């Protein structure tokens, strides 16, 4: 028996909507990870009666990369995220093993009612998507000549028709938004997958046997390869869009909503349909010519840089993430709203014998000077910037979509994470070793002040928000 045979068999499972139905099926086949199905914030489980098996919960989209890296031997996740990785990185170490009978959503291409792919393809096609690799795969096979991919964090359906021609995302989300499905990109499915090297070298039967007895799902899954569109060769450059007259402002949903609603209230600004606990996609302003749209704060810096919005209320953290990738993007912070205070930095386990990042690096590399330092983060570009700034040498950034608690020390040396009070970190045996930035929410705008009334409105909104921020302080 080799040492790897004695190591635990590591199984990654998804959180989110799959968690409850999957937990039920796992119990039925005798793979009982106690607490997995109850929605608790526990991320590591032992499996009843299988002492050599460990279970870790990840965001669905983060599961395939963990198996590809070899951190996990077996996993269950949506096939869309597996193929999002495999269509770009063909020689990956993921082996799809079995389609499972669990609910899933196809990924489709959708646009505003009345549009066609052939009609749009005559000009530059702006495409918002969480699936850039699948999008490139399907758009290149359709032979769409000239497209721009906006890689968004979520809610691609929020972009068409005014901020993109197409969205590529889960069918139900796009249809609910009123968009028309124009083509299929991926048929969905939930799969049991394995790491190739683990399958070839290790006896995984203790976990593999029950997991392979899960109910078989549809075989009608996978990446769609559409027939090419019939397009005329050679096309005139599209005319630039006319100058927009409407003043457009973006406000966030999710965690940032509460602080933004408070900032607006303090500034005396009201949008009907946007409150602390309510957010319509398009709230209404009583000021004529002002249009409000709700979108993810992560995606606002890009939307502003593209010229789609005159003002957006986001966070300095997301502005920092965007600027670390695109330092020359034409956006500026116009006003610090001074709410949603938190710190963002390098997080390590409490018991790490180091007080500075230099000491931590020396500790990790004391036995192996060439060891790769792994940084896991929802803020991948900031993690990359941190590694460069701190001269980490050989490092690897593991992008996360959430569920980061408990990630160190097993799956990464460093988390780049934000914390408001430090309570969650303490509860998980973690501490912030190095602060990268203090973040509050803020108003951002294009570097070039908009012309005419839009510029005046921007000045007026910023002045009122600044007054409200002074009150907050």
């Amino acid at each position, binding site marked *: 028996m080799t040492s790897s045979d004695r190591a635990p068999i590591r199984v990654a499972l998804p959180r989110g909507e799959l968690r409850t139905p999957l937990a039920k099926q796992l119990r039925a086949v005798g793979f009982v990870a106690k607490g997995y199905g109850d929605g608790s914030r526990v991320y590591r489980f032992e499996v009843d009666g299988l002492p050599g098996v460990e279970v870790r919960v990840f965001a669905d989209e983060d599961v395939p990369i963990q198996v590809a890296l070899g951190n996990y031997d077996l996993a269950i996740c949506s096939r869309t995220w597996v193929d999002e990785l495999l269509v770009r990185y063909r*020689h990956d170490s993921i082996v799809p093993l079995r389609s499972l009978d669990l609910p899933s959503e196809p990924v489709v291409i959708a646009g505003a009612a009345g549009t066609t792919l052939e009609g749009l393809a005559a000009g530059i096609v702006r495409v918002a998507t969480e699936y850039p690799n699948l999008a490139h795969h399907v758009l290149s096979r359709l032979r769409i000549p000239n497209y721009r991919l906006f890689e968004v964090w979520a809610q691609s359906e929020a972009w068409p028709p005014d901020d993109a021609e197409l969205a590529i995302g889960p069918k139900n989300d796009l249809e609910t938004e009123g968009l028309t499905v124009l083509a299929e990109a991926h048929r969905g499915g939930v799969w049991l997958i394995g790491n190739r090297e683990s399958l070839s070298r290790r006896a995984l039967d203790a976990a593999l046997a029950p997991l392979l007895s899960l109910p078989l799902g549809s075989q009608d899954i996978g990446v769609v390869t559409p*027939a090419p569109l019939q397009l005329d060769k050679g096309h005139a450059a599209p005319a630039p869009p006319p100058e927009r007259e409407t003043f457009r402002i973006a406000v966030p949903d999710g965690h940032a909503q509460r602080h933004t609603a408070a900032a607006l209230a303090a500034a005396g600004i009201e949008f009907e349909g946007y409150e602390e606990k309510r957010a319509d996609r398009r709230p209404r302003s009583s000021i004529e010519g002002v249009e409000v749209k709700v979108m993810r704060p992560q995606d606002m810096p890009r939307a502003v840089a593209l010229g789609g919005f005159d003002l957006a209320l986001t966070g300095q953290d997301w502005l920092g993430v965007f600027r670390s990738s695109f330092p020359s993007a034409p956006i500026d912070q116009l006003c610090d709203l001074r709410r949603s205070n938190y710190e963002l930095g390098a997080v390590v386990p409490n018991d790490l014998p180091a007080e500075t990042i230099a000491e931590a690096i020396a500790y990790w590399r004391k036995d192996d000077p*060439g060891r790769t330092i792994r940084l896991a983060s929802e803020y991948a570009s900031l993690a990359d910037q941190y590694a460069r700034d701190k001269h980490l040498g050989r490092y690897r950034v593991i992008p996360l979509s959430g569920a980061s608690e408990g990630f160190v020390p097993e799956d990464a040396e460093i988390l780049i994470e934000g914390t408001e009070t430090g309570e969650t970190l303490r509860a998980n045996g973690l501490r912030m070793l190095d602060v990268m930035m203090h973040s509050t929410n803020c108003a951002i705008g294009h570097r070039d002040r908009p012309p005419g009334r839009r510029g005046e409105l921007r000045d007026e909104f910023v002045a009122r928000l600044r007054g409200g921020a002074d009150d907050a302080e």
Partner: protein
Amino acid sequence: MSDSANAWRSSGMSELDPEAMRRFRKVESRFLDVTGARGYDEVRTPTIEPLHLYTSAGALSPQLLDRVYSFLDWDGWSGERVVLRPDATVPAARWYAASGNDVARVSYVQPVYRFEPGDADRELWQCGVELFGMPAAEGDAELLTLALELLEALGIENRRVDLAHAGLVRAVLASVGLDTAAQLAAYDRMVAGDESVIDDLTAARPEGAVALRLLSGVDGDSPGYVANLRTALLPLVSGIDQALTDLEGAARALDAAGATYRILPATARNFEYYSGLTFRVTAGGMECITGGRYDGLTESVGGAPAPASGFAAYLLRLADLAQNGGAS
């Protein structure tokens, strides 16, 4: 190479040591001498290009587009991805489109970048020529002669030219009732190595079976073979007269040069990209030069329609072949 040395190098990337550089420069010098003597002037194109240059040109198959090094640079917030140059012909066509020239002969020596499996080279040095503004018969003969002269100058023996024709493939696929989109889809399957596509097409369109079987199962080595092909195919497939004339002209030019060649009608590479004759030259069984005609390309990159053709070779492969005279 030790594992510790490889830890400091990206997959598929390697240095050229002094000995390799001497061989590199020798081939480069001969290449520039031979092509320069025929009036080809050297150009160099950017290493980083917008991805849409290649998607707009339709010059690369989706399978090759999957293997490009694409990324977002500082301007990537606009959604515009850039690529490390995966192909040298499209940028050269863009240069020609903007140059206002009528006929242009250009050469280049520069790397292209493509993902390859495992440790295979991903930085591939190419030397090649592009001939713009010269129509089929004359242009094709010039390029075939030039390719053979280059190999002769490098001392690479055991040469053989394989000829095919993209227009012939397209016309035959159309003759079994496939529209442009279906032709591309069928060709995608061929590119992916799916040989069952011929069976599927003949099952669906039995009336075109003879044309498909003749295309995929017969080849030859003389102008007489093209004449036989003409007799067999013309009653079945319309619009192939020019393709057969191109093949016949190329065969005669190679006969005149005393070259060994084969005509393999259905092996046209990059079906979407090329519009006419395509060829590859092997030495000792190893492919060393590939080329063809792509008359639609200049229009796709914003220029006026113009005849265009060219060929390229992997420089390091030529250096290996030159060292042992063409034995594989």
